[in-house]
């Protein structure tokens, strides 16, 4: 965490903005939001995020909150959760959801993506998603973790419960297994979804084109509580 004074100044904004790709204005807006959430302190804690009312009705709230506090998302080789983050980390995690600012054709975008992903800890948005699923930080999504994901997704639908989720997660795991492992011999086993497999299963829906939030027209006056 860089030293970040509570009175921001332009210079620091500029550093951050270069680092994350947000414009100066957006950085400032996000900083205001950060201050609002953290009640004007320098650090943000989980509770601060948990108290956002709009987030309360989100079924995967805990995983979203965890994403902000996961070191893998804001450090190159980091691992494990932290208890509190500063504005820089907040901004870094937000920056994953920013639409690419360069005007690229689809071919160029594909190239860039492939180049990014070749490096092992490429911090793309897919990695953030993957990290959200992979809660024990071992690089694979096991069946238990996947089941947990599905359970959370279905948690708002009432009493349907664990076993349905289990069935769905099982079927999903099988799909991944069949897709990525091909023919498996009688002694092979499928340990879990690695990042490459994860990418493969998501290729069909072109998730990267949809994973963006427009930060274009955020207005401080519209900030919800």
């Amino acid at each position, binding site marked *: 965490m860089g030293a970040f004074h509570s009175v921001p100044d332009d210079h620091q904004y500029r550093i951050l903005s270069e680092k994350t790709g947000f414009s100066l204005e957006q950085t400032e807006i996000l900083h205001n939001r950060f201050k609002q959430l953290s009640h004007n302190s320098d650090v943000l804690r989980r509770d601060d995020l948990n108290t956002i009312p709009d*987030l309360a009705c*989100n079924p995967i709230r805990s995983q979203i909150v965890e994403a902000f506090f996961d070191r893998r998302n804001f450090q190159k080789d980091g691992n494990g959760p932290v208890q509190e983050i500063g504005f820089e980390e907040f901004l870094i995690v937000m920056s994953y959801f920013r639409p690419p600012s360069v005007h690229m054709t689809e071919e160029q975008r594909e190239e860039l993506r492939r180049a990014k992903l070749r490096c092992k800890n490429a911090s793309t948005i897919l990695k953030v998603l993957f990290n959200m699923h992979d809660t024990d930080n071992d690089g694979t999504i096991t069946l238990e973790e996947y089941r947990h994901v599905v359970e959370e997704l279905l948690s708002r639908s009432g009493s*349907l419960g664990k076993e349905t989720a289990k069935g769905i997660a099982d079927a999903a795991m099988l799909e991944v297994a069949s897709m990525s492992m091909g023919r498996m011999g009688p002694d092979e086993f499928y340990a*879990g979804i690695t990042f490459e497999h994860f990418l493969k299963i998501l290729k069909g829906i072109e998730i990267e084109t949809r994973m963006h939030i427009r930060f274009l027209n955020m207005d401080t006056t519209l900030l919800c509580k």
Partner: protein
Amino acid sequence: MGLCRLLWSVLLMVLVSSSVPVGSDGSPVYDGVTQTEIPRAPHTPRHAHPEGPGGPHTHSRAFPVLTFQFETVRRPFEISLWILLASLLKLGFHVIPHFSSVVPESCVLIVVGLLVGALIKLLGETLPVLDTQLFFLVLLPPIILDAGYFLPIRSFSENMGTILVFAVMGTVWNSFFMGVVLYGVCVVEGSELAGVGLLACLLFSSIASAVDPVAVLAVFEEIHIHELLHILVFGESLLNDAVTVVLYHLFEEFATLGEVTVIDVFLGVLCFFVVALGGILVGTVFGLLAAFTSRFTSHTRVIEPLFVFLYSYMAYLSAEVFHLSGIMALIACGVVMRPYVEANISHKSYTTIKYFLKMWSSVSETLIFIFLGASTVAGPHAWNWTFVIATIILCLVSRVFGVVGLTYILNKFRMVKITGKDQFILAYGGLRGAIAFSLAFLLSSKHFPMKNMFLTAIITVVFFTVFVQGMTIRPLVDLLAVKKKKQTKFTINEEIHTEFLQHVLGGIEAVCGHYGHHHWRDKLDRFNKDYLKRWLIAGARSQEPQLISFYNKLELQQALRVAERGSEARLTPALPSAASLLAASQKRSRTMTKISKEREEEIRKILRGNLQKTRQRLRSYSRHKLVLEGEEDSWTEAKLWRQKVEIGRRMSHYLTVPANRQDSPPMRREKFESDNQVYMSKPSPAVSVPAISVEPVRPTDLAEKPFEGPQRTVEGAMRTGSGKGRKLSVTFALDVEEQKLPRCLSDPGPNKIDEEDEERSREWEEV
């Protein structure tokens, strides 16, 4: 009278020459009529009963054994004859092998219309003209309803902004640009065209600039471009109806009034909003009504499709009463009502709706094009070289400018940019069609003395776009290597992650405090779930989340595939698991009485659960592609019923089934589009190529694995090894064994067991 006789003889000639026996009931009468009942004046029953009210006749007259009385059936006869002709043509078109791949169907139909029209004219009869009333009230609604009901919502809503911009701004730009330049041409040209005022030109160009959904559908459904392009062109053609209606009425009013003030212009803009939003509102209201009605139809399943059709048609007509946009009303109605209706109606009703819509829209389209051809021969023409050529050139030019300009602006805001190739197809695919023609036909000759010239020009434009652009677009698409439609496979992973992503984005927006797109979508979903679904969906189905329905659908397909395979019914145990537990939690009070009945209901429930998610993802709304929907076949249901005992007994290899998407044998390309799996009805050897699946994507390796000792293999396959530390072993076999009976399962929804029995027994009778 003469016309029908003529048509009749034409058809007879065709049929006789191709020696297809047809029950033409006229011929015996012509040949061997025993009575002198010559068809001339309108008959009265008096002739048939010689012993009339006037008392007994003195001269003997034999009782007419065979009479000929045509007038009473004349009109329906004519109509049926036309529809029959259209359908036979369609048949013939697809029978000829390579023809359909070169020439788009619309071209052939227009040519046929021309021929028939020429024939009729030659014989001196009155020609059938594309009557505007007929067109707008009868022929157009089925096509639009078909398109709206099967609209791919996700891609449509994602691109909604772009589509709206193209529809509104594009059409307005086209109209004004073309109108003004055309007026300039008229002024410059002088002599014949001097009488054409600016407003008349503007009116003409507003008619001629609207992209036509019928023509677009007809051509684009055969070229399989990728989804974005398809939805852009198609969406634009649907939504520009509002603009066209407004502009048309606006300019017509102005032209008759003679002078335009600023207030009028302002009112015109206001009118646009009223027309568009009003149409959508009317459609939504009727859609909700239909959804609500369908909630109570559990006891009268037979008329369920009727409600869908009637409500939609009423929406259209109601909108037309107020001069609102009927097309938008129809689309809104279809879109709104679909998720709820599908959750409520029975499986068979759904099939009925789908087939009827496709059938009607297909026939409509054929008739439209034939009539267009015939009307061309009929209509009074006033050919003016300058005007016509100027129109065609301007149509193309203004379209190109419009598309390029708008795309340039839009690309600044879009995530997925529209490439140059896409723009070319967009511009080139702006086909005009019958709507333009009908609107031109509606013009009153009193106010527009140059109406015939307009008509001729419009017909020429329509012909040009349909023939030239329609025929060349397919080779151009291949030439430019435009991205084609991907074969979609619906995997549960995609489903899970799409939903997950949606929630993530909504959450991030909440964290930023930014009320963005996802926030509103989440809110809408929540509103939908909390209120709408509770009101509009009957019974416990209203609680069912999307993921579950999707999963059930997958399981159903697997189950059907397994059932198809015959003896070695290997069914995924997930079939009982999720479904049974789902229902168990929903109906805890129901205890299981008979296993067989429960299982049957389970299968039936899954068959219904099939409806939800896939239908939304149905990307093709084409006419030709609804073949062999085996999974909806009652025959398959019966087979499942027969297999149920085996299904219950055999717990099998969980692994093989999801991966078992075999490569399909070569099939006609048309069958690849719509719903997922297509099942041939012949039983097949167990392992090799059992089911004909439409998506030949997955590696089929796991299927070829030997099946002995399945459970052991499963265990072995899924257990995590020591290398990674002892994680929880994924012993599916274990899970498999856990799924013992009983299953506390019953149909959620309004069906009671009695009704199920009834339905089942009825179905057995059919089989």
